[in-house]
């Protein structure tokens, strides 16, 4: 790369040409306040004016996020004019912003509040007209509060980049502009898949998950038997909320914290994941043997299921009928476990901790109720669990490492752990399918060819003693669409496809801790490029550490089938563990 010479505050530096002033300054050790720390092409409008600096010879101050460096450029970040302009930019933004920072759940992770502190902006400096605000809390997954929106457009870009969808857009113009689904509809009345990727990039509290902490509090106070179960991807990320480096698995401490919050049982959803593999693997083998609809597509991700029901309902027969792991486990907790304990199903309350906001929607599905009782009663995101732990005064890093509860359904295999990353369900299924077809264990256990940690399509041909199974993996709807269109056109060469809603899978789910460089000062500058890989590694190492690494070898799963379900895909298994799907209208009639 060519280099250029620049000066910052009169000091000489050599930086790569082609960088913006903001990037060049960062390389030289300066953090210019900005609202596009998430600058992955997801905000490049230069419209917020928070990063203004003085450039000698330039007409007026320049926005450093879009202004490229050039040879001999002399930059001043601390020029009084620039300092004052940056402060004013933020003050103007604050003048039309909701003032409930105290109770805002984004507090502590709010980038607007951060730049306000850094620039010294004062609230109420400009008393002006307030634009009209809208509040949407109809959707089970997401809440939208335009009084906190700064119109940066990151959410719009993320929806397009991750999914090729664009549910959100700017409506109206000028002072009346706001961000919303078309017609200012609720997320619930538009073809939004409620994946929460927009929440992950929102710099303020304008887009948030629909909190269910109050519901869990009420259940804990009610005297019900409250059971908590946690998805694999949560352990790989929740440590970030307590200052651990990105990619640290904090499984033992997370379990200890949950126990201290007063839950009667602390289970790992991995048990449910192992059961899912037994059911889904058997379903796949059945389809292969009996000429069933192929390729079969996984059904663990509720964001993906939403997408399928809205956009590809003609392909519903391709979806596995398996419930997602936490729904399976919820159904088993309210039947198998409750029976053993002598509890009535209605006296058991199941809380799932998920890296996901679409799961909040999923648990409300009519198809996921048995005799009118939902399999799962409340879904907390990774972030919400962290909030509950902090609220309870638990000092997370001083907790001992504890083990999951294990009575009749605690044990789990390494195959369950890797469900949390794209390709994981596929690999877990292949480990078991191989065994069922050959009666032997796959020598090296791992099917590394299906592994990854990002969006995009991966494919592999697995030779199972003469039978070739062609598989493909996609995460993010943009990638999934390619595979789905192949099926529609009758050109798909696969037998089995794994699709996850979020790019990279659950490790990058819409309910995971926010990855914001300004709040992660100990991480490298490229953390936005590396966090998915780091979280994925944490899961793969936990898999490696397990003595049992195939779902069919999980002793509790074996016992479950012997004592309760009979065999995979039995009548009872179908009643409890399988579900159905239905086409849905994207922009339905709103009354």
């Amino acid at each position, binding site marked *: 790369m060519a280099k250029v010479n620049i000066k910052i505050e009169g000091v000489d530096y050599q930086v790569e040409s082609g960088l913006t002033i903001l990037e060049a300054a960062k390389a030289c050790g300066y953090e210019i306040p900005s609202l596009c720390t998430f600058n992955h092409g997801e905000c490049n409008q230069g419209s917020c004016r928070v990063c203004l600096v003085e450039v000698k010879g330039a007409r007026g101050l320049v926005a450093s996020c879009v202004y490229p460096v050039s040879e001999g450029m002399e930059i001043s970040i601390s020029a009084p004019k620039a300092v004052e302009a940056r402060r004013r930019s933020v003050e103007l933004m604050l003048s039309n912003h909701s003032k409930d920072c105290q109770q805002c759940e984004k507090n502590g992770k709010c980038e607007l509040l951060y730049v306000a502190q850094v620039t010294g902006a004062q609230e109420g400096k400009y008393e002006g007209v307030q634009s009209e605000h809208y509040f949407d809390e109809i959707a089970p997954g997401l809440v939208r509060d335009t009084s906190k929106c700064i119109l940066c457009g990151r959410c*719009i870009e993320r929806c*397009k980049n991750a999914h090729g*969808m*664009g*549910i*959100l*857009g*700017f*409506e*109206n*113009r000028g002072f009346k502009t706001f961000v*919303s*689904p*078309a*017609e200012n509809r609720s997320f619930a009345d*538009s073809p939004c898949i409620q994946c929460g990727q927009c929440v992950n990039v929102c710099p303020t509290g304008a887009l948030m998950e629909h909190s269910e902490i109050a519901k869990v509090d009420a259940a804990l106070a009610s005297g019900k038997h409250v059971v908590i179960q946690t998805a694999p991807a949560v352990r790989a990320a929740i440590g970030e909320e307590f200052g651990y480096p990105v990619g640290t698995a904090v499984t033992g401490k997370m379990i200890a914290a949950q126990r201290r919050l007063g839950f009667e049982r602390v289970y790992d959803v991995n048990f449910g994941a192992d059961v899912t593999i037994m059911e889904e693997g058997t379903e796949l083998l059945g389809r292969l043997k009996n000429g069933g609809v192929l390729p079969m597509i996984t059904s663990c991700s509720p964001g993906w299921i939403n997408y399928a029901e809205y956009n590809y309902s003609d392909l519903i027969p391709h979806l596995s009928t398996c419930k997602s792991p936490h729904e399976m486990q919820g159904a088993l907790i309210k039947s198998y476990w409750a029976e053993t304990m002598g509890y009535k199903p209605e006296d058991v309350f199941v809380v799932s901790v998920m890296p996901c906001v679409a799961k909040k929607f999923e648990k409300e599905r009519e198809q996921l109720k048995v005799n009118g009782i939902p399999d799962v009663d409340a879904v907390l995101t990774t972030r919400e669990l962290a909030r509950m732990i902090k609220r309870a005064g638990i000092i997370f890093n001083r907790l001992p490492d504890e083990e999951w509860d294990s009575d009749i359904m605690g044990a789990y295999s390494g195959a369950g752990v890797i469900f949390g990353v794209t390709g994981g369900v596929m690999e877990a299924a292949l480990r078991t399918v191989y065994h069922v077809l050959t009666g032997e264990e796959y020598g090296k256990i791992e099917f590394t060819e299906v592994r990854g940690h990002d969006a995009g399509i991966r494919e592999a041909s697995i030779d199972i003693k003469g039978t070739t199974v062609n598989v493909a993996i996609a995460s993010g709807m943009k990638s999934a669409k390619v595979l789905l269109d192949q099926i529609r056109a009758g050109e798909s060469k696969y037998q089995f496809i794994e699709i996850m809603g979020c790019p990279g899978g659950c490790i990058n789910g819409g309910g995971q801790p926010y990855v914001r460089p300004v709040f992660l000062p100990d991480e490298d500058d490229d953390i936005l490029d590396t966090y998915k890989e780091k979280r994925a590694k944490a899961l793969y190492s936990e898999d490696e550490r397990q003595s049992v690494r195939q779902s069919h070898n999980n002793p509790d799963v074996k016992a479950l089938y012997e004592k309760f379900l009979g065999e995979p895909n039995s009548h009872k298994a179908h009643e409890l563990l399988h579900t159905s799907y239905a086409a849905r*209208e*994207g*922009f339905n009639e709103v009354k």
Partner: protein
Amino acid sequence: MGKLQADAVRTIKEICGRYKDERTPLMMILSDIQKEYGYIPLEVQEIVSEETGISVAEIYGVVTFYSFFSLTPKGKYVIGCCLGTACYVKGAQQVIDKFSEILHIKPGETTEDGMFTLDALRCIGACGIAPAVSISGTVYPKVTVDKVATIVEEYRAKEGAAS
């Protein structure tokens, strides 16, 4: 969806097809639909979205950004009062207020009989004849408050004669 008639769907698809080689076809498509039907409701935007791959939210954003596009049907006669700087200082606000008073509608609305829509326009480039009013293509120069009633009557009479 499903409310649109088959021939309307066909026409909209045909309009989208006209600009399939354009790099940014959206404005042209919406412009043609607006001219053809007088408005661009969500059901129509969904078809445009399917045909062009542009998201419904983005199309909706464009439709609500430009005052030329409308989400609801416009009247037979669209009265556009210029409120650009020159017209404004020459009293255009009083002119549009008078139209509002006589027609019992606010700017942006349509009369119940579907006859008139009142629009506030930004500069239409006729500053020399300010304040200017444009009614379905006919421009009225130097309109004053006391001329408003006569103009409205002119159109009502035309309609009366036709029916």
